[in-house]
């Protein structure tokens, strides 16, 4: 990060009580969970196919994809689907709830502490520090 202050816009969402954020530019849209068509013999994190105004997309369960098991028994109140842009394709990811849009200046973004890195951390870009909490910045590739 340079000294010149830059602002980035994120969408904050929750998975099992944890806060995550994705750059708004990487999001095509956010919708409520539509009816899905299950896919036979698909991996467990693949929930099915949805029809987004004529576009057929795979919908995945981001909790399962990220192997978040803790608290997962807790009722998912308000399932929403974030449609991520992944290069020339899109994928829908089910999250527990959509929080809000964050306007973040570049100096409140911090690198991931080395000791907490693991193999999935390549998709973790940094930690966003807000007034009252920490939010993990994830890349849309997390859903790929």
């Amino acid at each position: 990060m340079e000294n010149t202050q830059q602002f980035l816009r994120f969408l904050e969402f929750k998975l099992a009580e944890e806060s995550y954020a994705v750059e708004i530019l990487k999001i095509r849209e956010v919708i409520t969970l539509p009816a899905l068509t299950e896919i036979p013999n698909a991996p467990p994190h693949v929930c099915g196919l949805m029809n987004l105004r004529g576009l057929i997309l795979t919908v995945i369960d981001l909790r399962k994809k990220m192997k978040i098991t803790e608290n997962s028994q807790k009722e998912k109140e308000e399932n929403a689907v974030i449609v991520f842009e992944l290069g020339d394709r899109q994928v829908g990811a089910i999250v527990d709830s959509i929080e809000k849009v964050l306007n973040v200046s570049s100096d409140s973004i911090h690198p991931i502490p080395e000791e907490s890195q693991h193999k999935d951390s390549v998709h973790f870009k940094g930690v966003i520090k807000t007034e009252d909490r920490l939010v993990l910045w994830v890349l849309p590739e997390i859903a790929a």
Partner: protein
Amino acid sequence: MEDFELELKKDFLDEAKGLLETAEKSFLQLENNPTNEVLINEIFRFAHNLKGTSRAVGFGQIAELTHLAENLLLKIKEKELIIHSGIMDVLFYFLDKVREMILGLDANLEAIFDYQDCLNKIEAALSGKIEKTDKTQENKPSEDSFPEEEESKISLVKEPSKKVKPTTNSGAAANTEETIRVSLKKIEDLNNLVGELVILQTEVEALAGTSGKETRSIRSLGKLCKEIQDLSMSLRMLPIGPTFQKLQRIVRDTSKTLEKKVDLLLKGEETEVDKTVLENLADPLVHLVRNAVDHGVELPQERLLANKSENGKIEVLAFHQGNFLALHITDDGKGIDPQVLRQKAIHKGIIKEEDNLTEEAMYQLIFAPGFSTKDQVSEVSGRGVGMDVVKTNVESMGGQVRVQSKLGVGSSIELLIPLTMAIIEGMLIEVSGKQFVVPQSQIQEVIKIDLAQAEKFSGKNPYYKLRDLVVPIFSLKRDLGLDKRVQLPPIALVVKKGKKFFAVGIDDLIKQQQIVVRPLTFEISHMKGAMGTTILGDGLPSVILDLVELYGDIA
């Protein structure tokens, strides 16, 4: 680079690609009619035009090369230079170089090319240092070389005077109908939207029921939707002509290398076919035609000995057959000996000595990977790659290849390919409460399961007696992982792979309908037994199953 400059360059390249195709056609015609002034003028204008516009948009390399070629053409036009095979070769060389440059610039606007050898060749032609290249001709070139020239040439389309001229004229006439260029993306978007419209219309029709005042309006709307759909689909359809045109060049070059004489007859150039299908078809066609020249047509002396005309004939015929495009590539060459194929295949370990093959099955051996009957690997073909690619390509488009041949008389390879890959007839089926689509083309028949006809051998899949056949019967429910219990289904689809039949048990048939095929999403692109997705009348996506892929190996 400024935007408008970029646009100018791109426009030029687009236009030049079209010009090249027309020019190639004229060049090929000129080769057969070296004195035809109309053709010479046409080609001269092509070069002149290309020189001017390429210089105007800043492609100096093309301008320089074309300028020199224009000088050569001017000499020909002014009858200071007589066209012969050597000069034709230089002209073709020039054309190929320009094409290479244009395609190169299309990929990279700053591309630099080495065209010195081409300049040298044209210079040599200008100074009269180029000699005839026809090897079949024994006597040294003489001043007045036309009559022999005509004979020694391979002539493409034997009745050029009748056939070629009208094409040039009608081409010009057809252009008077106004046209606009539209990006393919727009047409694809339109097709997708119209697909949606049709789906929505079926939804509305289902909601409205069968009585009431609305029904009539909805029906009319349905008819209109269907018409719009047909029209929007037709926008993707292109005539096969330009693809055919490339074959002329292939035949010219291949027969020249092999010192054969071949007349190529193209029929049905106006036949229209989906753009994607057309693109996938180009390579197989080239392979087949090249193969016909190499393996089919005999050398001139052999032909004469066999009481045939010196010039071999290859006919490429395209026509519509229902919802299919039929393409026949026929030669009057030596034909294929099925027994030779058989021996070769046994030798190569493709089949076993004791295998009993039908004649058709023996012909199909030419498509086996690694199969090549030519003992010598030639420059043209004979590496055993190609023919298997032809079959794979055609089958991946849902098409079929058939071979017919008569020893000493010739061979014919017949392709049958769906006109468009975007819409298929599908059967909507239900398995464990879920709906899937199976292409109608895979279903031979639908049978009601009679428990008395089923038998289970220990540890194996059950078999079912279907009249005089005993076929394996699979449970789609179990194999899609939807239900672990093993039980006989109430209904089964009979599917055929090659000569084998098998039955696939399902819960219910819903209905037959037209299906707009969408690709598989990335995440399920490797799913075995799935060929695509679609959106059903209720707006939900569904998977289009490929039962041949799912069961073909184990049946």
